[in-house]
């Protein structure tokens, strides 16, 4: 039996991009293999849940847990892996902040099922069958995991040691983290966000930035932005200002606005609130200064009309851990 420390990577409610990010470390994969034994990774390695269940508590040195907690299976696996792992890392935006799956929190379970199984134009479901937790068939009882009302992050489900944001996390950052563990150096305090930059995407973005004042907001298809100037200054909602760095400014550096996948920066609880705080401040106030107060809302709305979906824009990756984490129940 190998004496190499065991590691695992698990795919909960996610798209698989996180596994790709592991494959994306290229030849470093050999180093990882030389130093660790990847014992459980349903996407890449043949391993069964019962094998994990059979392990001693803490037998896994690291688990990179990606994906949000959408259903009871995700949750069970989170608890199981927590138990068996020394260093549980919430890996990727979904696991850390809910990611794109958490945008479903803007709709109720019923609305989601209606859309997916009944009202979708490409669906032919005359009997209106929707998934049931338990279905009785001739052969007996069929059970599927419970679909929860809301998507949660891993940290909202189990005790997490470290968080690694990104959609997916940059391979370089994964390598940094692996190297850190291998180096034997002292690990950062529990609960830290690791594999990230110091501040926000802006620090890593190479575009030219100057003092900001915008008088119109554009959707990306409306203009061809200048390639060197800050996108936000050109009226494109770039989330970089309110997004933790670590990606190296990938998107803005190729002329696409940041969509916020690294989640809120350190010390920020709510990415969207900060975007509103910042945008509301840099939208030029010159025009509303001389306006009757009752005219201000319409004027501002007109500037804002190019933001069609606030939650979808400002919380694309972080709704589960936002201050208000989705549609409220009453």
């Amino acid at each position, binding site marked *: 039996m190998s004496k190499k420390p065991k590691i695992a990577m698990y795919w909960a409610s996610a798209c698989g991009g996180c596994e790709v990010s592991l494959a994306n470390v290229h030849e470093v994969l050999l180093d990882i293999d030389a130093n660790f034994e990847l014992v459980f990774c349903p996407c890449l390695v043949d391993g069964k849940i019962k094998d994990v269940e059979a392990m001693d508590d803490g037998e896994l040195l690291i688990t990179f847990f990606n994906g949000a907690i959408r259903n009871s299976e995700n949750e069970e696996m989170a608890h199981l892996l927590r138990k068996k792992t020394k260093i549980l890392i919430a890996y990727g935006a979904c696991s850390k902040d809910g990611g794109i799956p958490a945008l479903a929190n803007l709709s109720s379970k019923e609305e989601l099922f209606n859309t997916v199984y009944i009202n979708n134009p490409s669906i032919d479901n005359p009997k209106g069958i929707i998934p049931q937790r338990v279905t009785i068939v001739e052969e007996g009882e069929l059970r599927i995991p419970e679909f929860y009302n809301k998507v949660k992050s891993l940290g909202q489900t189990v005790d997490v040691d470290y968080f690694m944001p990104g959609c997916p996390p940059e391979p370089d950052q994964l390598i940094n983290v692996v190297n850190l563990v291998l180096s034997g150096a002292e690990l950062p305090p529990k609960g830290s966000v690791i594999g990230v930059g*110091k*501040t*926000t*995407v*802006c*620090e890593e973005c190479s575009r030219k*930035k*100057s*003092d*900001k*004042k915008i008088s119109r907001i554009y959707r990306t298809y409306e203009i061809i932005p200048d390639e060197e100037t*800050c996108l*936000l200054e050109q009226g494109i909602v770039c989330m*970089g*200002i*309110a997004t933790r*760095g670590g990606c190296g400014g990938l998107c803005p550096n190729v002329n696409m606005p940041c969509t916020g996948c690294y989640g809120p*920066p*350190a*010390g*920020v609880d709510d990415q969207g609130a*900060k*975007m509103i*705080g*910042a945008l*509301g*401040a*840099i939208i030029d106030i*010159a025009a509303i200064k*001389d306006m009757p107060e009752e005219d201000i809302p319409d004027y501002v709305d007109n500037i804002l009309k190019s933001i069609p979906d606030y939650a979808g824009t400002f919380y694309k990756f972080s709704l589960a851990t936002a201050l208000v984490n989705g549609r409220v129940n009453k």
Partner: protein
Amino acid sequence: MKVGVYLCECGTNITEKVDLDQVSATISELDNVGYVSKIGLMCSYDGVSVFEDDLQKQKPDRVVVAACSPRDHEATFMKAMTKVGINQYLMQMVNFREQLSWVTEDKQAATDKAIVMLKGAIARVVQQEALEKKSITMNNDVLIIGAGPAGLKAALTLAEADRKVTIIEKSPMIGGLPVRYEELFPKMECGPCMLEPIEHEILHGDHAENIEIITQAELKEVKGFYGNFIAKIIKAPRYVDTEICIGCAECVGACPVSVKNPMNSNMNEKKAMDFTFFGALPNATYIDYEACLRSKGESCEACKTACPIEGAVIFDDKEEIIEKNVGAILLAIGTQLYDATLLPNLGYGALKDVVTSYEFERILSSGGPTGGQILKSNGDIPKSIAIIHCVGSLDENHKSYCSGTCCQTGFKFAHELHHKVGESTITHFYKQLVFPGKSDYPLYKNAMNNSHAKFVNYLSTSDINVVENKKGVKTISYKDVSGISGEIEADMIILLPATIPGLDNESLSSLLEVNLDKEGFFEELHGLVDSVRSKVKGIFVAGSCQSPTDIKGAVNQGVAAAGYMLSGLVPGRKLEIEPIVAEVIEDKCAGCHVCVLVCPYKAIQFNEETKKSSINAVLCQGCGTCVSACPANAIIGHHFTKEEIYEEIRGVLS
């Protein structure tokens, strides 16, 4: 942590509606609450001393005072805390009177709300930090830009209080516009006669040693902030030493070159070596170098040869860069007139004898192109004169505002015309007439009573059209407010264009980061109560560069600004910096520039080297707008931190 909670009864103002015993019993049980004390009337002399004694005895870490509005007595209790050696920012007040007992009818409801309010304050105060007021030394000297009435009076006021003042003036003379006017409204005083004593006081008076005047000078760069500005000034060469020149004009006579005289709007000529006008101060000539033969490589020395004073003419005079350290800056750069050629139907620039108010002032002036005689360009006395008021004013397509001074100027002209060319007819075209205040009526009355005058009320300048026939006779066709058309002939047309911001408002605005309003005037801190302060602390504004005004208004503003500077820049006193300010946490700043323009006080600077923002605590007023604008929460708003507010929210909702 030990929080001491003090409940003021405020006589019976609070106890009538709030059961303080019940409040005390509930609050005592809360985490961190060390003790709860009730005081009868906390703000009274006795109340404060009970508070102080108790603080000394209890030595709390934090204090909550539930009493009246903090707007009433927060300062009282803060002082008491300072007195007993507890940092005054470790206190939170709860407004039990104005926002509770006086506005709640039901006693139990009030008592419940009292508990909730206290929970918020206690949770908040635990988060509060001890803040220290810092202080820095200040330079008490002042830089004044512009030597018109506003700047000169400000300089005199400051100099009399022994402040060192530097006045820089772009032109070679001081006195601004009015010194070029023969008569001044409303009392028809002689302009130079009124201003010269002030100028003499500045140049040679008892406090003249406190004032340095640098003419032909402009501001190049300013660094620093209130109390510590460093100004770089560029002084153009004058080629004449004003200290030793005796103003004898020998050089003027000797100079072989004549050029158009800009002082008289090019209506006559002057020499390359000349005065700006006779009587201008400093009483010294200057060389218009571009006109001078020496600039064309010739070796003319006519002026130097004629000069009786050795060394007064300096051919190798050079541009100088002068650096001044000052505590405050006053902008008093004056004004100019709206460009009347932008209203081409009035004929200005195209037709002879269509003049602006400034040009007519010079025609009236004894130092002007006609020696003070009212003459047309062909030398004839005009028989019919039209004065068109409101040129470019009250017009959304030009200047929407009323300059407020042109009516009096027009009436003054009418008065002069009556005296000098009494038989000539005068037609006033106007949109609105204004003559506010106690002194302006007589000139209006005089203009109205002139039997040779008539008034036409028009709506828009586009309703007036000036044409000239081949004989040079100008005809004004017009439509008045009631839609009635008419026509008059006029030998001379005087336009009264709107007063607009000075030529350099824009460049100085960007140099000093002082805002301009939408018309381009320097924007004041507050239109009613702070019209002489700009939004940048330590930079003041006076006169028509801030808003169109007359001499009285300009002088008052200059003196008002001097008052601010005297009360702010006191020798020996340090500048105390309020600790309730915003501060950038450098490590968290990503250099996104979101905050910079959010600050209305220009307190946020971006360091291009470190790529970080920083906030100047002297300029910061503590509003916190940048704090909530910072998308990385990299700015702390001291005393209103996120943690403090969060805890307060939690507290009031618990």
